[in-house]
């Protein structure tokens, strides 16, 4: 059997004689010049994962608000008429499109003009028809659908607010003083 490996000792500070402890945010150790960017604030060694392959394709969902002037069919027909190399899918909320980022962005820009206040866009992580998410394969609603359903309830008011913008004052959240915090803590007792 081979003997157990000795743990590597950290470099010592020549003045204090203490071991150098790497801290988060220090990319290089002052003593050794070693790269410490893989050490977290919590002191743990971070695993660096390989970046995912990027093929440049993105998927976006086009959601028609409750007061939209166009229907799903009209929306999809317009998308086809633009003749961009995209995958287009009709859905109950509008349409989903997938393709190269430049093409998708251009189509989104043009399609918004059809009904600027009632067309909403959302990014989608999974590609269209992905068997891990597509309800044709899985059955039942897709995971993100329930959230979309919840937000859909607000879309009418959102479009009203977009149509009639009003000036409002945005309050800046500020930190409270320790005295004030102590006062609150005392009141909560």
């Amino acid at each position, binding site marked *: 059997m081979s003997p157990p490996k000795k743990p590597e000792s950290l470099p010592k500070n020549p003045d204090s004689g203490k071991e150098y402890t790497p801290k988060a945010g220090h990319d290089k150790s002052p003593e050794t010049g070693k790269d410490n960017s893989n050490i*977290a*604030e919590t002191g743990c060694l971070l695993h660096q994962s390989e970046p995912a*392959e990027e093929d440049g394709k993105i998927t976006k969902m086009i959601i028609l608000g409750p007061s939209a002037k166009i229907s799903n069919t009209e929306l999809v027909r317009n998308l086809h008429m633009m003749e961009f190399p995209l995958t287009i899918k009709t859905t109950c909320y509008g349409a989903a499109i997938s393709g190269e980022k430049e093409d998708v962005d251009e189509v989104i820009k043009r399609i918004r003009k059809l009904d600027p206040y009632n067309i909403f866009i959302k990014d989608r992580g999974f590609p269209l028809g992905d068997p891990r998410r597509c309800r044709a394969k899985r059955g039942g609603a897709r995971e993100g659908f329930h*959230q979309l359903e919840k*937000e859909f309830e*607000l879309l009418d008011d959102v479009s009203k*607010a977009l149509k009639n913008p009003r000036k*409002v004052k945005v309050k800046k959240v500020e930190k409270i003083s320790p005295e004030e915090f102590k006062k609150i803590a005392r009141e909560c007792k």
Partner: protein
Amino acid sequence: MKIAIFPPNSMILADLVERRGHEPLVMQRQIRKKVTSAEIDSPPLNITTKEPIEGLKYAAIEVPSGVRGRMALFGPLIEEADAAIIMEDAPFGFGCVGCARTNELCMFNIRKRNIPVLEVTYPTSSEETMELVNKINEFLDGLEDKNG
């Protein structure tokens, strides 16, 4: 400007940010990276053992792996942001944000970054929704002014 939104999968927030010419940092972008890499091939394994290890950058080892796994996805978005919009009290079933502890950690990390942050609550009425939209637009326009 790159705007982090919370909940990171909110359609309304992402859409409003995009309308004002900014880039919303959304969860779906992170998910896309994960699901288009070759190694994940079977449902429902979106998260592999690598993520809880990557999450160590944001939370200690004692923190549940679910929180660390989520932070491995949320964390890079927060780090990349130039400004942020936080919508508190979003419905519990709001997609991937069903973990209250992760939400707290995310909000803490956003506030710790000292970037302009707008904090609003999830609207429950028509009036509140309109107020929310106007506040967000005002905040985003203000950022543009600062940016020149």
